[in-house]
């Protein structure tokens, strides 16, 4: 065998190995969650809030955490979208090509992107203390929104940025205003916006550090924005740290529920992103 052939075989093998390790560990995670969580799973888990003595192995479920997580995730994704779409449009439509302010803004979002979520949690907590707020759904939503805005902005910016300059030129040359042009660009980027939303959903629903100090934890389902709320990551955390085996098993069941939710969101996002990409140039 000559040198080039050895090289070729080696790198092919390396790529196979790396891919197998990654895909394999993904399946291992799923297997762990399913095998450990499955027999602890029952309909009470998803239909009931914790009953007295839940944390020492008695009856009830984690509906409080499921609902809480959905509230926080949906709330912060919507709030995040409302804030980040204008930012992305500013960067790509309103600022000029090669603008220094735009590149500074992008850099700022890169930095924000890299900040660990516990820092956002601590920041949210500081803000709450400053305004004299208690742990609440609202505080949780705001903090998680701060966490996901950089994700949303960066992911959407990547999509809108690669749209050829000529497409917006085309809209402008028909006499479109900037806002009308922005709408054309948004139309072109719907699949990308859905993907960005999915990324931020995944991050928001799985983050424990952000909600620890801000949303708090409770066995009740919140009925207003000012009440504290439970979340799935914290439900997993509290149950897993219990010495009682039944409670620990329930933690895996909760993890299973979390995983299934994320899976459903991913599949739905794929479906919608396909559906909306038919007109894409």
């Amino acid at each position, binding site marked *: 065998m000559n040198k080039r052939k050895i090289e070729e075989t080696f790198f092919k093998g390396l790529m196979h190995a790396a891919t197998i390790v990654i895909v394999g560990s993904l399946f291992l995670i799923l297997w762990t969650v399913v095998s450990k969580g499955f027999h602890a799973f029952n309909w009470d888990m998803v239909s009931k809030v914790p009953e007295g003595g839940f944390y020492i192995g008695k009856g009830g479920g984690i509906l409080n955490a499921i609902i809480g997580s959905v509230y926080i995730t949906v709330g912060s994704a919507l709030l995040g979208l409302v804030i980040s779409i204008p930012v992305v449009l500013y960067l790509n439509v309103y600022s000029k090509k090669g603008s220094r302010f735009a590149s500074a803004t992008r850099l700022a979002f890169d930095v924000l992107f890299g900040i660990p979520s516990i820092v956002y949690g601590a920041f949210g907590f500081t803000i709450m203390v400053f305004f004299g707020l208690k742990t609440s759904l609202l505080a949780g939503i705001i903090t998680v929104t701060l966490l996901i805005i950089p994700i949303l902005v960066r992911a959407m910016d990547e999509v809108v940025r690669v749209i050829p300059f000529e497409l917006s*030129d085309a*809209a402008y040359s028909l*006499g479109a205003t900037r806002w009308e042009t922005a709408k054309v660009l948004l*139309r072109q980027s719907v699949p990308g916006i859905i993907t960005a939303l999915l990324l931020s959903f995944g991050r928001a629903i799985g983050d424990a550090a952000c909600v620890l100090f801000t949303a708090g934890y409770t066995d009740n389902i919140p009925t207003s924005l000012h009440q504290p709320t439970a979340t799935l990551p914290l439900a997993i955390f509290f149950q897993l740290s219990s010495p009682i085996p039944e409670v620990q098993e329930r933690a895996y069941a909760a993890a299973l529920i979390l995983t299934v939710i994320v899976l459903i969101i991913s599949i739905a996002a794929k479906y919608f992103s396909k559906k909306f990409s*038919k007109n894409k140039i």
Partner: protein
Amino acid sequence: MINLAPHISVKNLNVYIGDAHILKNISIDIPDKKVTSFIGPSGCGKTTLLKTFNRLLDRQNDVRIEGQVLVDGEDLYGKDTEVTHIRKKMGLLSQRPFPLPMSIYDNIAYGPRIHGIKNKKKLNELVEHHLRSTALWDEVKDRLHSPATRLSIGQQQRLCLARGLAVEPEIILGDEPTSALDPVSTQRIEELFLQLKDKYTLVLVTHILRQARRVSDYIAFIYMGEIIEFGLTEELLLNPKEQLTKDYIKGFIS
């Protein structure tokens, strides 16, 4: 030299991008309802000159524009000039067709819609009319609501032309509009240009001398940001007055 009524009149135009002096003291009168081509080597500023006409150059950072561009006597760079109004007067064909991310029908209807035409019947008429005038109607009439991207690239370029015509411009700007097209599609676009000059003023940027010769009435040769020579097509190509023009036509500079 040219005694026709000018449609676009450029006076002492200087364009700087950053520190680079891109267009140097350009003055040119572009005649009404004729085809005028800008020729010249890559990077000579011909596209920049075209972009000053519809103010798409404004989108670039660090651009400084001095001088005047008058369209029907109105200064494009005047203080009160509304950009959308100017751009509506000019259709643009870019190097590659860029259909809007919507259906064939909506591509044509987009311009009229943003300018306030809501009546369905009127829009249907406009779409049909402009698809016919770009010889697309028979090819697409059965799939008006399918995505514009499913068309061939030549059809897309004609669609872009039809889309531009639908806002009722006076001027059509073409920035090397056939450079991505095959010979047959190129020929169809050129034929359309020749038909359109009855109603519109056409300004084309091209680097294909034969194309300039086939379609244009006037040619301006631009080199290093300056207009070297401007005149009737035949005169300029067969009897260039300037040495630089002669060299370019013979292929010495490119």
